[in-house]
């Protein structure tokens, strides 16, 4: 249910954007969810639906997954995150705080933990559409 906290953040951010842009109504919030954080989409969507009552009645939350791309800073090797060979508690730790991936994952080519997350880290708002 940590997804609930992320959904609350999305709603709070959408409210701030709407206020800043003078929107009376928010019609659509486009949300990207990076695979690295392994957000349970069903729970996330459920949380958003419950939070809709707080001023987002009729808002469409459009959620899609984004692949996680990593790049080694040492050898520049690029790869996509894959949890297949990770232990369950490691996967769970990365779910809570994606940066702990640096404690558990190494570059497949040179073995360095010094890599960057190019894209697909966690939850972000791609765009918001509304009416003034």
């Amino acid at each position, binding site marked *: 249910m*940590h997804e609930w906290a992320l959904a609350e953040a999305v709603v709070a951010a959408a409210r701030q954007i709407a206020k800043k842009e003078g929107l009376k109504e928010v019609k659509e919030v486009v949300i990207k969810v990076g695979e690295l954080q392994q957000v349970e989409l069903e729970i996330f969507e459920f949380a958003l639906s419950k939070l809709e009552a707080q001023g987002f009645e009729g808002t469409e939350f459009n959620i899609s997954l984004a692949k996680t791309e990593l790049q080694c800073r040492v050898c520049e090797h690029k790869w996509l995150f894959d949890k297949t060979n990770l232990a369950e508690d490691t996967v769970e730790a990365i779910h809570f705080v*994606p*940066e702990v991936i640096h404690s558990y994952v190494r570059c497949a080519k040179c073995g360095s933990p010094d890599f960057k997350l190019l894209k697909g880290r*966690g939850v*972000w708002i791609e765009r918001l559409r509304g009416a003034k």
Partner: protein
Amino acid sequence: MVDPRKSIIDQRLGKIGRIIAVSSGKGGVGKSLVATTFALTLVQKGYNVGLFDLDFTSPSTHIILGAEDVQPIEEKGIIPPVVHGLEYMSLVFYTKDHATPLRGADVSNALIELFAITIWSNLDFLIIDMPPGIGDAMLDLIRLVANIEFLIVTTSSRLAFETVKKQAVLLQDLKVSTIGILENMKMDNNGCIQAQTGELGLRFLGGISFDPTVEEAIGDKSQLLGTAFARKVAEILGEP
């Protein structure tokens, strides 16, 4: 593209009275011991207190507390476990015994994530154990936590105080509240640090002599609170 996590941090910290970052421009001055003992002292006085270890790459408060076999609970966010009466949060719950080599952007991201998802209860104080230096963690706290207060720890060494001085001046320039400077592992009574703190226009909180019994007390709360070090922390910081 908007990162939504920052928008919820004010709400997450909304039920906390005071947020105090125990910090130092220099490493090895005893920040973690001061922060942990300070937090435990406040619990003894009956306050509701949280302790948040933000030293992601070198966490140590869990060792000082002897926090074993505890883990946050997931429930509409992350509920910190209670350790010796403290609500306690650390990245070590997720990194375990592994090294955590993080660059600045990763430190910021992990810090924002933990502030966004950790659900603290009604606290009188949240004490933050900071990493050394004036880098990402300090700048992020200033950026993200509106009512942050800094408590600066130094030793008697010029090597420590020279960097602490820069930190103190920077915080003053940025108009960030600083409670004062604490001299830890005090070597003599020449009053040098006190005088220089006064020259900076800051409050000298007090000096704590080096206490060799502290090392043995690490991991044992009762023993730690019985040390001369802890008694001095309570005398100086008991009513912050």
